[in-house]
């Protein structure tokens, strides 16, 4: 009874969010924010992967931009240089990145302890160097331009209005899939690993393999987002995938609430708005602001800003309702 009541309430904010999202790109609503919202959608996809990896499984990746960049460059090269269908290129990129991440995870997780952070840090730096140095493939520091748009039949995603719906369709699908994974046997196994690896192992959870799988899934998300980024801008350059990009992604995950899939929208949103609208004025000092946010959130709200805000909201609603019921 209580569960049914609760589950009905869960759909209300989601429906409101959906309605809001659908209306944004229309002229009479918030059309001026369409481009910003496209980026928020793309970054949300990466952030969801990090939430699963960091928030649920307790594994830190400091090189998620490597997977993000792999998706972007593989898509760009396959569809521009080799003329492959962009959808197919996107698919190939996701499979390649996922397999690559799985192999790395499989090797790292055979060691006990938190080596993933170090390994991904190194991976991020190596990939960034490769994006810049393999200039015959990647165009070097200048990157590539003239990458085709995605299209279905004759319908080309060449306006931001159209791309907005494409990106958010992907984004919501990823969110939904992730929520299903989290609320299932798989999600419990991931949280069990976070809770106690020894206990997780004792009840039959293959800790190493689950970690490798979730790393691979987060890499697939990052790769899809990278492909969408490329097909949205039709250009690609290595700047978007440097170390600071990985740090920003961690900030998004941390703000978004490491214990909630939907918080990823909030995390990606606030961080993008912050970096596009506010932190531009700080120039290169923006790194310090990101560092500060990270430290403050981790100290005062280890479950993430989103979860904290949700708690406050629930407490307010509870108090309001109590007042309403009082005789």
């Amino acid at each position, binding site marked *: 009874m209580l569960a049914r009541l609760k589950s009905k309430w869960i759909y209300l904010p989601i429906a409101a969010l959906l309605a809001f999202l659908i209306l944004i790109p229309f002229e009479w609503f918030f059309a001026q924010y369409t481009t910003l919202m496209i980026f928020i959608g793309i970054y949300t996809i990466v952030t969801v992967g990090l939430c699963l990896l960091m928030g649920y499984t307790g594994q830190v990746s400091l090189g998620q931009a490597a997977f993000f960049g792999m998706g972007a460059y593989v898509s760009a090269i396959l569809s521009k240089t080799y003329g492959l269908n962009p959808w197919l290129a996107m698919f190939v990129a996701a499979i390649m990145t996922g397999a690559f991440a799985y192999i790395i995870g499989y090797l790292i997780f055979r060691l006990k302890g938190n080596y993933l952070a170090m390994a991904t840090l190194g991976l991020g730096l190596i990939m960034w160097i490769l994006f810049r140095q393999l200039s015959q493939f990647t165009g070097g520091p200048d990157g590539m331009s003239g990458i085709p748009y995605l299209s279905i039949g004759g319908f080309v995603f060449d306006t931001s209005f159209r791309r907005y719906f494409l990106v958010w369709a992907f984004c919501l699908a990823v969110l939904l899939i992730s929520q*299903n994974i989290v609320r299932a*046997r*798989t999600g419990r196994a991931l949280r069990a690993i976070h809770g*106690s690896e020894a206990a997780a*192992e*004792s*009840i*039959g959870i293959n800790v190493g393999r689950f970690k490798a799988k979730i790393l691979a*899934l987060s890499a697939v998300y990052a790769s899809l987002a990278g492909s969408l980024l490329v097909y949205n801008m039709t250009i690609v350059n290595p700047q978007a995938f440097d170390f600071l990009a990985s740090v920003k992604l961690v900030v998004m995950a941390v703000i978004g609430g490491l214990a909630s899939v939907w918080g990823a929208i909030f995390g990606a949103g606030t961080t993008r708005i912050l970096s596009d609208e506010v932190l531009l004025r700080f120039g290169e000092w923006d790194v310090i602001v990101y560092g500060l946010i990270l430290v403050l959130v981790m100290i005062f709200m280890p479950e993430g800003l989103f979860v904290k805000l949700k708690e406050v909201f629930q407490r307010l609603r509870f108090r309001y309702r109590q007042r309403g019921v009082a005789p």
Partner: protein
Amino acid sequence: MSGSVILETKGLTKAFGGLVAVDKVDLSIKAGKITAIIGPNGAGKTTLFNLIAGVFPVSGGEVYFQGKLLNKVPAHKRASLGIVRTFQHVYLFGNMTVLENVMSGRHPRSSYGFFEAALRLPKARREEEAISLNAIKYLNLVGLGTHAEHDALSLPLGQQKLLAVARAMATEPRLILLDEPGAGLNTSEKRQLSDLIRNIREMGISVVLVEHDMPLVMGLAEWVIVLDSGQKIAEGTAAQVQKDQKVIAAYLGEEVE
């Protein structure tokens, strides 16, 4: 073979560098019985447990479970074979509710993975329903049914230990290893625990416990194995062991130190 043996070790040895924590131990654990492993501090009891559970590799000797050699079987596979353990420090999943902790214990008895979960395929829904029904069953077994929705770590220690047993039982073991289940419990909690352990034995499941609390051990165990300095020095019924000169010496030796 007198009665059937569920777990057997032959010359089981574990050395950490120069320190031999478990030294050529031969064990033969009878099926369907409550067996206690006792011994003074540092006798190697917990190391022995970890070897049986597969936490680290053996330095020498063999472990057999229902006649099958376990040496090369990784820890996480032993649960589906039917061996499960609890921990001295409980190790509940603090990021879950009481019920979810027990549901986790159904992991080796269910099989759907990321793909089925992501798309909520019929297999996932069907198994998920069975998982929660079974979890409630095991939660009721330890008497925590009314606490299902609480955070696991909000329970007092006594109930946390019961919850850990429920989580372990949810894997449907043939053999359950309890590492100091009585530590930190008060008298009434200990009585509850003893009843639960007897209950588990009645279900046909073999129980092995490592325990410091002598009254608890003597009241429960049908067979007692005594370790000292990594070696088995005696075994028998509780009454026999209590009269054994070597056992008395081992415990007195400890007290003098």
